[in-house]
């Protein structure tokens, strides 16, 4: 049983790698990127397509990104303080 699980995992990995090789570069299977290029300016009004994606289509992801940054800054605040600072109560 212990031998079987890694073998199955390796076979799955090989299957996914082989199927990924078949996709030609620059010809994605989904039509989403072409939709962004065709309708991006009309939908969002932003000429920079990167901004159109990360602040309009994917704005929710950007909120998570900002949250990660905020948490990192708060972590630095939490760790790097003088002994006794901010512990008044």
């Amino acid at each position, binding site marked *: 049983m212990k031998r079987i699980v890694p073998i199955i995992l390796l076979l799955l990995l090989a299957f996914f790698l082989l199927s990924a090789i078949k996709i030609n570069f620059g010809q994605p299977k989904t039509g989403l990127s072409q939709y962004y290029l065709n309708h991006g300016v009309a939908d*969002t009004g932003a000429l920079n397509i*990167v901004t*159109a994606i990360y602040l309009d289509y994917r*704005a929710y992801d*950007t*909120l998570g990104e*900002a949250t990660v940054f905020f948490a*990192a800054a708060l972590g630095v605040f939490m760790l790097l303080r003088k002994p006794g600072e901010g512990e008044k109560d």
Partner: protein
Amino acid sequence: MKRTSEIVSIFTRKLFPFMLLYGCYLISHGHLSPGGGFQGGVIFGSAIILLGLVEGIKEAENRFQEKALSLIKNIGMLVFLLMGFMSMFFGRAFLSDFMPRGEIGTVPSAGLIFFLNLTIGFMVGTGIAVVFYRLIKFGSEE
């Protein structure tokens, strides 16, 4: 006691406002040209960091206090969330555009994207500067 060379000091003081200006330009034109909130904010923050490295942390804090920068960072996060809820208030999906748009190619052409860029830019810039302040202060304790 002055430890930095005169050349570096003078050059930094001359360069500093232009770095801030360039950061603001990248933030405000994020939807028209390469760049955007994160990149412009990092340039904004690195101007403050350069000042802190060259002139010393005391001099940098005379102009940009850590508490004020920290406040801007915290308020930025809040404003980002509030803008998302404002879209819902106007009957759109969370964080989607609800503002009137100008002509394409001008600054007010993208509606909410401009304001989101502004928020992210100032948040990232002040956040990076505050992290730098903290690291320097922690390292220079006697």
